[in-house]
């Protein structure tokens, strides 16, 4: 969506006043594979979460780490690092 504001409408010096506004960016669109969690193997250790460069995992109510598909870039670090092999990368579109 092109930004069509006039010069008066921008904040002075293009300073960004909304912290974390990057969350609006759909970086999940980049991926060609996505992580799928197998709950029965997961011990909720959080290693996947602490190793995600994009903070694209979050703890759900049950304590499992869910993937934020809007942001996950599908790098596969979580799947590789999971000590219980509880995360498998599957091709997008499967």
């Amino acid at each position, binding site marked *: 969506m*092109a*930004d069509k*504001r*006039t*010069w*008066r409408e*921008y904040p*002075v*010096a*293009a*300073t*960004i*006043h909304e*912290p974390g506004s990057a969350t609006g960016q759909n970086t999940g669109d980049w991926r060609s594979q996505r992580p799928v969690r197998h709950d029965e193997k997961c011990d909720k250790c959080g290693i996947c979460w602490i190793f995600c460069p994009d903070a694209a995992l979050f703890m759900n109510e049950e304590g499992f780490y869910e993937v934020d598909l809007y942001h996950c870039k599908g790098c596969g670090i979580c799947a590789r690092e999971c000590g219980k092999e509880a995360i498998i990368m599957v091709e997008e579109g499967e």
Partner: protein
Amino acid sequence: MGKRIGLEVSLAISEAVKLARVDAVAAYPITPQTHIVEELAQMVADGDLDARYIMVESEHSAMSACCGTAAVGARTFTATASQGLALMHEMLFIASGLRLPIVMAIANRALSAPLSIWGDQSDVMAERDIGWVQMFAETGQEAFDLTLCCFKIAEDPRVLLPTIINIDGFTLSHVVEPLEMESQQDVDDWLPTYVPQVILDPAKPVTIGPVGFPEIYTEIRKQQDMALIESYGVVLEVWDSFEKKFGRAYKPVETYRAEDAEIIINLIGAIAGTARIAVDRMREEGKKVGLVRTRLWRPYPFEEMRKALGGAKAVAVVDRALSFGGPGGPIASELRSCLYPLENKPVVASFIAGLGGRDVSIEDFYTIVAETEKVLDTGYTDEYKMIGVRE
């Protein structure tokens, strides 16, 4: 009414910075600005100035640290000259792009190579495009007064631009001049504490200095340009209020016997003193000569300059800087642009003098006027003429 004292002009600037209750100074020494920063260091050491003094390791870091202090809301000052200013070049655009109201004094000095510690205006003339408010002082009083004004102008929410006060290196920075020193109480009354618009504060996180894609870069530049253009009104307001408070008036352009002059000398800075003597002598000899000294350099005072110079037959511009192989000295080439829209334009002759600390004498002004008369008679022979060069 201030207290009349004699003071070296560099120290007068330091006094103004102290009276302005500057919060932070980040500076690197360079001739001929050293007395300004040494005096400030002593003031801080003695507890007379309550500020943090960052003794940076280069001028580039000086301007960088100034961006840091200004970004958290500190009233910020630095000073430099010549090579130091040139080293800051990258940072100057950034300071104005980030809209940080830093005040900087420059003791104008020639640029290398060859190395010169002596005065001319090549350092600041190489920085015309940086988007800062820029003004030039002729006397110690002006240096003191305009420094105080710079803070008020820079920090005005309608401006928010860094500001330069220029003084001629050595010929102004190192001379003792009589001036009225104002009291802390009076300055406090006139110059309030800096209230920043946007700062780095964990309570309200902002991102300063992002990437500007082509989609927005032009608009941000326009925004910045308009701020500089419209700062003209704020400069006049501040000078007006300064006059009301302290009794000394300043205008963007200062004229001397120019109203009916046929040939007007246009220049910037301390050599105006010599020029005035030359003008008086030539007037006694029956020549209709006058002087126009440009005080406000950015934003350029187009209307005032057209009014002051448009009616003359010829303008003899004296530049203490040169754009090699280009269209004359900086002041001359900008004046030509300024006068271009006029139906009847004066001849504009460009003279380069006073480079690298060389004196500009009364005789030089006679030569300049004589050369200008030649141009009036027989037309231009050169893009610009260097005065006093041994050929």
